[in-house]
């Protein structure tokens, strides 16, 4: 492991590596987690056309857990897409009357399907409506009995359960974005770390090393391992900083998230191997990585949610490993078990295999 150790020594002395490894990712991620507002409450917009005692009670309870804002009907779509609101409730005229009569009425709600940010508000609203429907049925259309029942319901602690869930979901959405940036910096660092092969070729040390009793395979393997270790150290430290310094919410399974990112690091190394195999020198590799990694992260949803993109781009994004990685990480952050992301693990590894094969084939053609 002489080459591996030497590479680690060289990489740790390189100021650019240090910047790419910690400084820049931490600046970006802290910006997302702090400036954008990692702990903002869920924003629920309400259009109350009914405006009764019941709807006031409903909104009063909602306001304990969410930030209620007024909205005009024609602004719903725009505000949802721009992220100004997470959930919109439209209470039609006659809603309260129908409830008291025990009819099966529904609230009109709007949210963006692909996001989890409205989940808590949705659950809370559904629970409230289901409860008042039951009270309505029990009161047999008697308004006095209904409001008596409502008074008992108000005293219950049901709403409190969702308060923490709502805030947590909001924080987790930003954690996902922070991790999206981490994936991007991982890929940049992987390219930088494994481009030591190209630097060796420029410095002519490549030939000198291979003139010693060292095979090309061993040289390449040790180069990948050193690159992987550097990326793994980056992931470890940044996740720890996100968790313990920035208090990012990783949901219940930080270790699963860590494990998945380490698996994705293999794909990042494979991608960098492919980029390096097409580059003449490290400068060209860096340029090529910018051309590939940034669009890959854009398409993959690292900078903004994928649901914002047109259908065609969303279809194309399936051919980008970042999409699958972020899908899996989102699932893990929102509490799904590791077994639920095995498909994503397989696909991310398949990407790694394809990148390695392309790289190996390119080298074979070069050497022929």
């Amino acid at each position, binding site marked *: 492991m002489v*080459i591996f150790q030497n590479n680690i020594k060289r990489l740790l002395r390189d100021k650019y590596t240090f910047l790419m490894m910690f400084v820049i990712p931490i600046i970006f991620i802290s910006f997302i987690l702090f400036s954008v507002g990692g702990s903002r409450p869920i924003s629920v917009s309400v259009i109350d056309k009914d405006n009764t005692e019941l709807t006031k009670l409903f909104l009063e309870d909602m306001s304990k857990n969410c930030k209620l804002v007024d909205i005009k009907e024609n602004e719903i779509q725009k505000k949802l897409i721009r992220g100004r609101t997470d959930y919109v409730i439209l209470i039609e005229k006659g809603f309260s009357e129908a409830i008291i009569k025990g009819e099966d009425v529904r609230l009109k709600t709007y949210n963006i399907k692909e996001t989890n940010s409205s989940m808590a508000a949705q659950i809370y609203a559904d629970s409230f409506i289901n409860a008042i429907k039951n009270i309505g049925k029990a009161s047999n259309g008697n308004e006095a009995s209904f409001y008596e029942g409502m008074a008992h319901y108000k005293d219950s602690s049901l709403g409190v359960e969702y308060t923490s869930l709502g805030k947590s979901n909001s924080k987790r959405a930003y954690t996902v974005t922070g991790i999206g940036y981490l994936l991007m910096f991982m890929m940049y660092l992987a390219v930088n770390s494994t481009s030591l092969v190209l630097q060796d070729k420029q*410095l002519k040390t490549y*030939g*000198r090393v291979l*003139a010693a009793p060292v095979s090309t395979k061993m040289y390449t393997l040790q180069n990948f391992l050193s690159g992987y270790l550097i990326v793994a150290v980056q992931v470890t430290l940044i996740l720890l900083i996100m968790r313990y310094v920035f208090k990012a919410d990783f949901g219940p399974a930080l270790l699963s998230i860590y494990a998945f990112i380490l698996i994705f690091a293999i794909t990042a190394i494979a991608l960098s191997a492919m980029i390096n195999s097409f580059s003449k020198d490290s400068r060209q590799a860096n340029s090529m990585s910018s051309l590939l990694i940034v669009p890959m992260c854009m398409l993959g949803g690292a900078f903004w949610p994928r649901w914002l993109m047109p259908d065609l781009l969303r279809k194309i994004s399936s051919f980008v490993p970042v999409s699958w990685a972020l899908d899996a990480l989102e699932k893990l952050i929102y509490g799904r078990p590791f077994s639920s992301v095995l498909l994503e693990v397989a696909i991310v590894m398949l990407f790694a295999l394809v990148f390695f094969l392309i790289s190996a084939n390119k080298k074979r053609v070069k050497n022929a």
Partner: protein
Amino acid sequence: MVVEIKNLVKRYNDFLAVDNVSLNIGEGEIYGLLGPNGAGKTTTINTLIGLIKADNGEINIHGRNINKYSDEVKREIGIVPQEIAIYDELTAMENVTFFARLYGLRDGLLKERVKEALDFTGLWDRRNDISRKFSGGMKRRLNIACSIAHHPKLIIMDEPTVGIDPQSRNHILESVRELNRKGSTIIYTSHYMEEVEELCNKIAIMDHGKVIADGTKDELKNMVSVEDRVEIELSAVNYTVVDNVKKVTGVKDCIADNGRLRVSSHKDSKNLSRIIDCIVNADLEIIAMNIEKPTLETVFLTLTGRTLRD
């Protein structure tokens, strides 16, 4: 034989870089590979150390085929590449240690050999300095240090003195002699004629991928010289002495020119003492004498029709 190269051929598409080269290099020799840039020297060397696969031919080092016994053979070779191949961001000591470890050196022996190599190249005092800060000459010396810590039996030096100051150059040339005295066989490639002439006991001249001549310096010079020339500066010149010198056995011609006699004789005439006798008998004083011998430059010019730096 330390190195046997038989009918080596290497092509790059249509370009024939090495054309049926055969060389034999014996134990303890400093073997010069001389030729202009693009003659095929570096390709031959790179094939010899296993960096390039030959299209045809066979290379044995200490009787072992380099393809069959790659690792064993590589352990016995030290390569000083044409371009300085060191890590700029590492210190001199870290560079030598890294390359020595690649050859399997560990622990006490590693430390001892690293110190020896740095001492040998005069860099021990600068061992902890980052090599980026070194002068061109010091980098060249470090380039050598990195190739000798594992005590190779065969050292291949590919143009090790390119672009350095005379002091560092002399240091390197002296190092080459010292390594040879310590028992290493050396292959030395250069396009500096005078270096090869000064250092090497056997030489191969390459051009357009072919070995056009090989042998000892004298053997090469004898291949091209057809006459011996001597120039004698005298106190005075008269026609009598010119006529008398012309009558000496072997003399082809004698010309008086501005107080000097230019005498050309058939090769190996061994008539210098008789020429001097003629001058002394004519009561003339010899002020200076210069025996002209063919140089490797002459050899190259004669064999290729151009000078080495054309």
